[in-house]
């Protein structure tokens, strides 16, 4: 790898042993992918994946301490994934004790570390940092050192920024150094599509189901999706962006997609068209049957598959403002039709603190509150990942949450019916 004089000096330890180790780490990481140089990080802010103060992740806190002691701070302010705890979310006495005193016992400690390292503000905790209300929205062509698979795939695909699927810790190291290795999704070549995906469904595909089917098929490759603009249109409006947020999260968690192009819609597809498709790209046709089969193949790990759900989580990744408004309308209408006053299953909608703040200024908030739904900034995934919550029968329309936990996936329409009419 070719380094500038400044980068060579850092590697040789002229700015301290810790920075030298960071440079070595990023070089080894980049060299494995044929990186030829280090590229300057150009975004205003970074985004980190590790938001949770799990007691057991001592190695991370020790490493962070080392960085702080050596004054190796982030050159950029950063946002970070959602908090794992929120007292508003239903939990029993035992769960509260386990969450607070066993699992996330280092939460306060870790948040103080994040503040010292460069946290944007005390409420900068969300996986959807790119929402306008949050303000960490990279520009087209920006080079990022982000992690969080759903945020990376959104930044690359919908915003046209350039970021590899970086891991936690690598993310902050790029920000401390101000450079990331130049390879993969940072390069023009790495952004070309290996797959052509043809959408031939008879109706608008469920975003999370389509993302799951494509993710499991293409894994880490770049798909170029043809035929989705028929359902989403050719403008990146709120509805399309929300759809792509959920679609992308499913491609990234059910597979390892870091970038997708949607013909006639996403910025690079609009700019370069089908010239983004590599010669010899493989092809995958998505039909109603493909989506039904994908759905059928999800394992249900509940002990009693026929028992009624105990909790519903919606918003993994966190919901957009428009999504909260749309769901308020949907639930209100569903409850009116079923003659019910409130939802039949304890339900939590999750969104970023900034989006929640904006939502609470609208007249939708009292209407949602009336349905009995809890609005929270929590990370549902972190809530679920312990034996007590794992035994709960949780339903969701998030394919990311389904993948990482024991929760059961239903489509948005099914969730609406379960919440408004009950049943199992």
């Amino acid at each position, binding site marked *: 790898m070719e380094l500038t004089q400044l980068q060579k000096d850092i590697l040789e330890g002229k700015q301290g042993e810790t920075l030298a180790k960071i440079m070595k780490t990023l070089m*080894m990481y980049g060299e*494995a992918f044929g990186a030829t140089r280090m590229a300057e990080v150009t975004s205003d802010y970074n985004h980190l994946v590790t938001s949770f103060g799990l007691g057991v992740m001592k*190695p991370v806190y020790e490493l962070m301490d080392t960085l702080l002691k050596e004054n190796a701070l982030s050159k950029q302010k950063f946002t970070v994934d959602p908090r794992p705890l929120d007292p508003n979310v239903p939990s029993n006495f035992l769960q509260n004790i386990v969450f607070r005193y066993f699992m996330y016992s280092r939460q306060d400690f870790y948040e103080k570390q994040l503040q010292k390292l460069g946290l944007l503000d005390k409420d900068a905790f969300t996986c959807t940092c790119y929402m306008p209300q949050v303000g960490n929205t990279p520009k087209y062509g920006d080079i990022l050192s982000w*992690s969080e698979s759903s945020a*990376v795939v959104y930044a690359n695909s919908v915003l046209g920024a350039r970021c590899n699927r970086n891991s936690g*810790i690598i993310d902050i190291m790029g920000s401390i150094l101000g450079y990331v290795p130049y390879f993969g999704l940072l390069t023009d070549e790495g952004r070309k599509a290996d797959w052509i995906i043809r959408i031939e469904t008879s109706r608008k595909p469920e975003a999370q189901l389509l993302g799951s089917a494509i993710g499991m098929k293409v894994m*880490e490759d770049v798909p170029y999706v043809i035929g989705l603009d028929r359902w989403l249109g050719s403008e990146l409006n709120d509805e399309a962006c929300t759809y792509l947020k959920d679609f992308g999260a499913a491609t990234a*968690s059910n597979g390892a997609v870091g970038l997708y192009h949607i013909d006639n819609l996403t910025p690079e597809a609009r700019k370069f068209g089908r010239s983004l498709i590599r010669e010899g790209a493989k092809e995958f046709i998505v039909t109603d049957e493909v989506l039904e089969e994908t759905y059928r193949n999800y394992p249900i790990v509940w002990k009693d598959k026929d028992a009624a759900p105990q909790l519903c989580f919606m918003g993994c990744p966190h919901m957009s403002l428009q999504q909260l408004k749309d769901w308020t309308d949907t639930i209100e209408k569903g409850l009116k039709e079923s003659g019910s006053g409130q939802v039949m299953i304890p339900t939590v909608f999750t969104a970023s603190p900034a989006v929640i703040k904006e939502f609470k200024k609208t007249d939708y908030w009292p209407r949602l509150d009336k349905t009995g739904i809890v609005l929270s900034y929590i990370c549902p995934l972190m809530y679920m*990942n312990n034996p007590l919550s794992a035994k709960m029968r949780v339903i969701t329309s998030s394919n990311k949450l389904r993948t990482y936990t024991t929760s059961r996936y239903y489509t948005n329409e099914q969730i609406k019916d379960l919440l408004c009419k009950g049943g199992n």
Partner: protein
Amino acid sequence: MKEFKGRVITPGTCVSEAVVSHRGFNTLASLQKALQFVDKSAKVGDQNNPDLFGKPIAGKALCLPQTIGSTTGGLVLYCSAVMKRNPAAMLFYNPIDSLACAGAVLASVWSDTAMPVIDNLGKEFEDYVKDGMKITIKDDGIVIVE
């Protein structure tokens, strides 16, 4: 017995038993329980991976196509290495992915655990290696399977 040659991502030698996945290894879904709770054998918790679900991987030679899922993957792998709940080695049929590579590099630079990681071992290796086979890893990316 068969010998294969791959590319060394992080160096090291070891003799271990193979645990084989033909699907992407979801690092967070697989190792989270092992890290959170007292499971030194690191039984895989990923319900979507029938090749590995419930099998212990600590101290084993994990043979896999790639890792998938959350970008906490590298960090999780790094923690598993510091906590000595990591695979003895990771052997990739395909080119390594960015998350696994991050984990391997972080473990190599920032911990005292030697976890040899080799990629590009190819389809023939994938077809040949089976659970329980003896794996010997040499310094230069040579993997002997018997």
